[in-house]
């Protein structure tokens, strides 16, 4: 199955929005030496689809591959990110690649629980520097 560049851009934007709003929970690991055979982070929209995001070379760096699967895991289509520039005046594949390149580190951080950890540590520091009540 093939999706168009416009469709991939929509997938990327909607996945990014849902993830940033905390509506999607990503799990898994993208480590090359992980004994788990299915490398990459995945998330499921119940009864609709499963999305898998991983690096092409298993090194946590660009390029990335976004895979859309049926809920049972059957692969529908893959999108490998392409080079992109800084402006939005570029092909839709490049725009989609840019969105995915922003999404990947966010997903990676959320899977490791880094944002929550940072928040709790910062709250600890806030407690130290807060002015004592009068």
């Amino acid at each position, binding site marked *: 199955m093939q999706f168009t560049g416009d469709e991939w851009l929509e997938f990327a934007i909607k996945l990014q929005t849902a993830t940033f709003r905390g509506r999607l929970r990503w799990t898994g690991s993208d480590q090359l030496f992980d004994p788990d055979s299915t490398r990459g982070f995945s998330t499921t929209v119940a009864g609709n689809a499963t999305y898998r995001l991983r690096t092409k*070379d298993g090194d*946590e760096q660009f390029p990335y591959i976004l895979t859309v699967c049926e809920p049972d895991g059957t692969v529908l289509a893959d999108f490998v990110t392409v080079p992109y520039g800084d402006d939005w005046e570029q092909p839709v594949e490049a725009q989609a690649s840019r969105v995915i390149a922003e999404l990947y580190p966010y997903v990676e951080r959320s899977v490791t629980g880094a944002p929550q950890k940072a928040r709790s540590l910062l709250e600890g520091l806030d407690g130290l520097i807060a002015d004592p009540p009068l």
Partner: protein
Amino acid sequence: MHVDGITWLDWVMAAFTLVGFGATGFGLYQAWSQARKATTAAEAAKDAVAATRARLLAVEIVHEFGAVRQAVSHVINATETNNPEVAKFALVELSEAMRRGGALAREDGAPLISTEIISQLETTSKLASVAKADIARRTNPKVRTYTGELLEPLTDLSHSLLDFVTAQKYALDKE
């Protein structure tokens, strides 16, 4: 010989008892000796396994370091010819070989490798991946812009690895 109350039969029984003690003692000695031999054999087998494992590990490390050196030369060539496709491929190759080499070098029984080289392998592996990502992200990138800073440390590392590989090959040949 006859002592009051002790018959010849008692003397015979006493003699058998003594022989019995002797036989038991000999049996115990034999058992101890066998156990000792078994322990020594088990230890020898364990040592042999450890030595073989260390040799295999050394061979693997030599192979991996060879792959690192080859990838370094590919990265240098790709930089000189400004070929982004070859550069990306070589940087992935380099990063993977460095990661594998570093992991093997940290294993128990691995030949002594300076911690400086191991940490250089691990750090440079990440830098190589970042350089590859920088090249892959751009259309018509100039390879040297992203690999330029890596070339000198890579060349130094390659020389250190060559010294290690040469020494290991000599040691393995001697064995």
